């Protein structure tokens, strides 16, 4: 029987939650790296026992941890993230030039084919790659070196590269997203990059449809259709049918189109999920009701999924990396909250149950479907 492994990063450590394919009873293992912030951890699809985790604190900086046994044991890998060449500057909050400074890794993305190759999205925004299982890291400087790089400015959460999507149909195509620079695409394995933000509109920047400067929160794709992208932006849920060349809004009847995560059903490429949040200053669900919204039409027409979720007095947030979908049938959907709950649905979102209720604030949730 298949099984499922959830990888949960929190403000104070990582947790590994496991269940059989029924997804009814869960074992909780952790905390790993207790007391450290674990922004993200993710398993390799090429070797599901190989996991990478980003561990950091303000005191002792950045570590990368690696597991070769599915999260039972971990060992530190390399933690030197040096910007290529003379780093130069980006734009600071007050408009002045500010030196690029490495702060932390927000997201780790293992290669689709090689368990020893892994990408890391950093703050200040840069993309790093390791080809030796995380022992050493090299920047892919073409991204930060894009002619717009000097003008990138941080969002409230920092100038972070938080989304990395690898195209399963084209080994040379990579998508990334940066707050608050926008989305970028490489068609040459990360050597050169260009912004893919046409169609985005952000009223909070001087030129609402500028080439860069948009606060993209998350991008998702279905592996069978890598040219179709879905985006949760600071405000607006967006869709692209041409690999990011152009975007159009699909917020439709959502109660608010602000939010952080977005995900795609494993077997229905037109079925997508978001968690609407009231506003950019009120980081909690509208009306105190925690609702996942599902569209079976690739956007615009959304239904609220509420069964099993708190429908009163709920004021948690769901962060950008904190939702994941398994590949079982029916598809499982999972998300974690800043209140420390991890909810799961074994029927594509129709019914929800708390898997755990009292973890530290959840920063990320990933899922592995195991044979």
């Amino acid at each position, binding site marked *: 029987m298949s099984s499922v492994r959830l990888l949960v990063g929190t403000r104070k450590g990582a947790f590994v939650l496991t269940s059989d394919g029924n997804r009814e009873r869960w074992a909780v293992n952790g905390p790993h790296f207790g007391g*450290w912030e674990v922004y993200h951890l993710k398993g390799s699809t090429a070797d599901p026992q190989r996991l990478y985790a980003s561990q950091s*604190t303000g*005191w*002792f*900086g950045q*570590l990368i941890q690696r597991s070769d046994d599915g999260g039972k044991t971990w060992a530190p890998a390399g933690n030197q993230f040096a910007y290529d060449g003379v780093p130069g500057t980006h734009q600071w909050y007050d408009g002045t030039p500010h030196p690029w400074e490495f702060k932390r890794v927000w997201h780790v993305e293992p290669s689709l084919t090689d368990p020893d190759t892994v990408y890391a999205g950093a703050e200040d925004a840069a993309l790093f790659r390791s080809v030796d299982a995380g022992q050493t890291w090299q920047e892919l400087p073409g991204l930060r070196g894009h002619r717009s790089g000097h003008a990138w400015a941080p969002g409230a959460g920092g100038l972070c590269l938080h989304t990395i999507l690898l195209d399963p149909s084209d080994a040379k195509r990579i998508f990334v997203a940066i707050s608050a620079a926008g989305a970028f695409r490489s068609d040459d394995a990360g050597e050169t990059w260009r912004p893919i933000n046409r169609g985005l509109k952000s009223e909070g920047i001087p030129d609402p449809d500028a080439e860069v400067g948009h606060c993209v929160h998350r991008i998702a794709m279905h592996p069978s259709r890598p040219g179709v992208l879905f985006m949760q932006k600071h405000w607006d849920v967006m869709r692209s049918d041409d690999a990011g060349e152009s975007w159009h809004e699909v917020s439709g009847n959502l109660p608010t189109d602000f939010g952080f995560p977005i995900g795609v059903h494993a077997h229905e490429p037109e079925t997508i999920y978001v968690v609407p949040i009231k506003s950019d200053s009120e980081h909690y669900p509208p009306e105190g009701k925690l609702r996942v919204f599902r569209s079976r039409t690739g956007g615009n027409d959304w239904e609220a999924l509420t069964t099993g979720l708190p429908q009163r007095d709920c004021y948690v947030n769901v962060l950008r990396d904190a939702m994941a979908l398994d590949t079982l049938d029916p598809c499982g959907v999972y998300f974690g909250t800043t209140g420390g709950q991890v909810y799961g649905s074994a029927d594509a979102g129709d019914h929800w149950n708390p898997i755990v209720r009292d973890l530290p604030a959840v920063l990320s949730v990933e899922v592995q479907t195991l044979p």
Partner: protein
Amino acid sequence: MIRVVLPAHLRTLAGVDGDVTLEVEGPATLRSVLDALEASYPVLRGTIRDHVTERRRPFVRFFACEEDLSHELPDTPLPAAVVSGAEPFLVVGAMAGG
């Protein structure tokens, strides 16, 4: 023999209980003690000072003999009591973060 006291998270990371003892070749300074510490426990590289600049991380402090040595130059000799092993050299996670 120099005794180094690490904060709890770095002891866990280095896999040690209690004090770390180090042999330091040449004059015992902030730099030479940290060099010896990182040579013995490579996992600590980058957690106390920057990999390249060797600048102390902002929320890490160095204490010894009831003195704050955090702002001393890297090649400043350590107190004799630390060099003799009578007093430990303390690497401290600053009280910060609530």
